[in-house]
């Protein structure tokens, strides 16, 4: 029964992925590069938030420090291309491994902290990294790294005239990260994570090494996050510290996940599907008015969504599902009577 259920769920996932893979063939999307841009960002932010979801949603450690890992990944690719004139791939690998090490080193002491103390420690880490990257001469400091013109193609992962390959790149990233999380969710490791989230002392009493579990979740999350950062810089052709390594960036990931539903597999995708088009379309329609009109509206919409439904979009869906289930039970019991 359980297996059948999960098979059904997997079928749903294949369906979603096939639909996403076919999106560039819709004529309206293919003709409009801005629509493609929105789709790419939705997939990128969904992947990024899913990476955050491993530690923030499943393990319950609310980290606002993920922009550091995002930034290290971005700088890894950027440095390989701009400073060393290579293809981005070795930079991406080195950056991701580096951000994994950084994640373990900074999280090990921080995991002693609980609740808001942990959250504020991660703020502090973001601010420290931001300031350091701003003055780090080797990384071009506050000027940032600007991409030179390069040969297009998968080897350099750059395209200038079309966004469709980027879309498929983002889709690959999305599928990989979601399948990793899907695998974890049904695995022993996922149950350990949830146990640590629900009650750390009880989890330890049943023999779970909570520090090891949290650290490995953080390392995995940072590793995946820096891949997303690398994709971002390849798409953006430019990176500077405030762009990738600031509290604002961190907040977007948290916002997407919480809005969709933290600790659920669909949550980040749903959150990104709502938040990112909101952000991009308000920017396009009202950004032209200047003076931050679009951001006033965006902030207002965030407040509105949270005030109307604090439990996120998955909260609404779960409510509907539960309602249908109870209805079924009621009708079944009335038949027995």
């Amino acid at each position, binding site marked *: 029964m359980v297996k059948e259920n999960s098979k059904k769920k997997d079928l749903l996932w294949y369906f979603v992925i096939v639909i996403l893979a076919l999106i560039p063939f819709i004529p309206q999307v293919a003709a409009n590069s801005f629509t493609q841009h929105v789709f790419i960002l939705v997939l990128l932010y969904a992947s990024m938030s899913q990476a955050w979801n491993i530690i923030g949603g499943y393990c319950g450690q*609310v980290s606002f420090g993920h922009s550091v890992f995002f930034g290290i990944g971005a700088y890894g690719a950027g440095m390989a291309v701009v400073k060393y004139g290579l293809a981005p791939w070795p930079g991406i690998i080195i950056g991701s491994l580096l951000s994994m090490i950084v994640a373990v080193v900074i999280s090990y*002491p*921080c995991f*002693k*902290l*609980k609740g*808001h*103390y942990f*959250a*504020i*420690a991660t*703020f*502090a*880490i973001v*601010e*420290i990294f931001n*300031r*350091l990257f*701003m*003055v780090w001469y080797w990384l071009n400091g506050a000027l940032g790294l600007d991409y030179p013109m390069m040969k297009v193609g998968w080897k350099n992962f750059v395209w200038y005239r079309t966004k469709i390959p980027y879309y498929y790149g983002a889709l690959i990233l999305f599928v990989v990260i979601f399948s990793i999380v899907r695998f974890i969710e049904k695995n022993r490791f996922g149950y350990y994570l949830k146990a640590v989230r629900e009650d750390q002392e009880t989890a330890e009493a049943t023999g779970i090494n909570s520090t090891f579990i949290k650290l490995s979740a953080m390392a995995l999350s940072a590793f995946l996050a820096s891949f997303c950062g690398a994709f971002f810089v390849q798409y953006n052709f430019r990176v500077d510290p405030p762009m990738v390594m600031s*509290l604002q960036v961190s*907040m977007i990931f*948290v*916002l997407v996940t*919480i*809005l969709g539903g*933290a600790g659920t597999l669909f949550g980040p995708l749903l959150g990104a599907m709502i938040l990112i088009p909101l952000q991009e379309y308000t920017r396009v329609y009202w950004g032209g008015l200047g*003076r*931050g*009109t679009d*951001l*006033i509206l*965006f*902030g*207002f*919409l*965030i*407040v509105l969504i*949270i*005030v*109307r*439904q*604090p*439990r*996120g979009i998955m*909260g609404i869906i779960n409510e509907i599902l539960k309602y249908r289930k109870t209805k079924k039970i009621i009708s079944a019991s009335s038949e027995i009577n």
Partner: protein
Amino acid sequence: MFFQIAIDGLLTGMVYALVASGLSLIWGVMDVLNFAHGEYLMFGMYVSYWLGFLMNIDPLISWIASGIFCFLLGVLTYKLIIQHCLTGPPLSALLATFGLSMMLKNFALNRFSPNFRILTGTLLDGKRIILGNIVLPLPQLVTSIFALVVVFIIYYIIKRTRLGWAIQATAMDKAAAELMGINTERIFLLVFGLGGLCVGIAGGLLPSYLAVHPEVGGLFGLIAFVCVAMGGFGSIPGALLAALLIGLVEALSGFYIAPVFKYVAVFGLYLLVVMLRPKGLFGW
């Protein structure tokens, strides 16, 4: 030279203390991190600035208007936003205040433009006290002492009055406080208002020596978070001590190491303190 810098740091620290004590109240009683706190400060500064600029009212008087304005801002935030978020997961209130801070910041940008504005020709402008080889600029001195006094008044209210006991009771156990006949809804409303009041008073006095612009609140808000967490959960003396320490470290590291590293030192100090005492200086 050392003493001059240390005193400058302490004076800044006292202002941080007032901003942080407002945040500490809200955090201690409701367990909500108010991200819009720095933006309250920014609005407090703008109220005082515009009163000074358009009507020639000195910041020494217009802090009252700023305080009242931010009190109302806090009350409105609670009524319209926070009240609805308390049923959800703990992060939803934080994210809602993040949205609010984005709104307020860009509203200020929209209405008042990103220009840096500073009040000149106030009563205390340019006056200073010279003690030996230490120079004390009067605007900073008055603002800081005033901030310290307000922190003490707030602390007195919390510790010694019936209202303060009700606030403490609500912070400890909301259900039990309700059974004792405390209207916890009203306490929450009042606490949010008081948090706004603290930061509004600080904001009202600041424009006499600090330029006001839409981004001014961001850094103050962040430092207030760090002060509160470093001092310990909802502890006003802890926040005061942490704020003075942060002011000192900021000034000294800015002078002796490099100005760019002063916030690295401040946030590093927080991490160091929290490593040694995971619940802050005065936490338990």
